[in-house]
């Protein structure tokens, strides 16, 4: 009913000789013309979307979002910016991921203090890092406007994995600075670590998780007690 009425209404304006039309009527009909066109376009888009969805659901090929495919296949760069944000004062903060393993033990000790871990001897920390197969870090790089290259670099996250370089890897010491928690950085850190390990053909990636973080790792693809296999510790200190 609507469109018919509209066309009828339009007809004299569209086909007839140009006459001096009252302003309100002109805008009124223009408005309705625009509405009609928008409606047609929307309907078209909607139909197209439905059609595409139909195609997708009925195809036998699994169409994965292209970004995930290429992401997994592309070799992970050793260092890259994960997140960048501009602060109100114009300063830019970048969260940089690195798998190069360059960690200042003093920075690490400070980070461990922040998350409340008991202190470990610095020499042992350094040795543990050196003997780890992979150490991944998150640093916050803050560039103030007008600071002329005096960037503030801060260690805000770390994870490491030990491995036999062939079959198994075990992830230890996952930590994120409490003031940067809850932003998905821990998730990103572990995802990148997993990807780097898989790219090096390490098929078995394991870890031991406190009960509170089992869900966190489950969401990243880890399964507790697969096939009933249990993690055991030698005379653990409860």
């Amino acid at each position, binding site marked *: 009913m609507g469109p018919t009425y509209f066309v009828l209404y339009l007809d004299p304006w569209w086909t007839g000789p140009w006459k001096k039309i009252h302003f309100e009527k002109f805008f009124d009909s223009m408005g309705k013309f625009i509405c009609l066109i928008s409606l047609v376009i929307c309907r078209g888009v909607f139909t197209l979307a439905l059609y595409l969805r139909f195609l997708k659901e009925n195809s036998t090929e699994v169409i994965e979002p292209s970004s995930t495919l290429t992401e997994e296949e592309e070799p992970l760069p050793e260092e890259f910016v994960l997140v960048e944000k501009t602060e109100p004062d114009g300063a830019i903060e970048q969260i940089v991921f690195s798998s190069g393993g360059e960690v200042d033990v003093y920075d690490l000790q400070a980070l461990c203090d922040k998350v409340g*871990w008991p202190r470990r001897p610095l020499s*042992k920390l350094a040795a543990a890092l050196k003997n780890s197969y992979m150490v991944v870090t998150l640093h916050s790089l803050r560039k103030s406007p007008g600071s002329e290259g005096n960037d503030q670099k801060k260690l805000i996250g770390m994870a490491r994995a030990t491995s036999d370089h062939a079959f198994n890897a075990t992830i230890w010491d996952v930590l994120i600075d409490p003031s940067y928690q809850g932003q998905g950085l821990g998730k990103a850190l572990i995802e990148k670590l997993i990807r780097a390990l898989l790219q090096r053909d390490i098929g078995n990636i394991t870890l031991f998780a*406190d009960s509170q973080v089992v869900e966190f790792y489950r969401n990243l693809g880890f399964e507790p007690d697969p*096939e009933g296999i249990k993690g055991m510790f*030698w005379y653990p200190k409860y």
Partner: protein
Amino acid sequence: MLLRGTISNPLPSLHLKTPLRLRSYAPTATTITNKCSISDEDLESRGFLLRRTISNLNLDHLNSVFVAVGFPKRDPEKIKLALENTNSLLWVEHKKTQKPVAFARATGDNVFNAIIWDVVVDPSYQGIGLGKAVMERLVQELLKKGIVNIALYSEPRVLGFYRPLGFVADPDGIRGMVYSRKQKKRK
């Protein structure tokens, strides 16, 4: 977001002759050296030699022991790479055949944590204490290095083998987790 491991407290002095035992109910490192179920001499008299390096270890023979206990057959080159990057390993050689009949290894950062992998005993030689012998000595070696956080992943049917050796499953609710690509895709 924290993985808790048992973290050793710093030792009060660096010049201790015997390592301080921090857990009152656990045996000390010194007592453990004297406390093996079967002594080295006993093993030798029965025709078994204890080895601690991969020299003289035939990887194909080792692979066949792995297969015999049900492990998937693995590329010998990869096994060689894994063993070269393993900090501690122990195996038992059968004198007569010069073949490995028991094996265990541990990887880790050599300071805080160690995980024991590939604990196997040739089925024809099971039940005479070889697995226990290998495990006891491997744990001893790790403790001597100062590593107190020793873990492993145990199939359900051999939990009873590890318990008498001092291993506890899921202590304090800690769960062993393994990454599964299928699991991730299912999401």
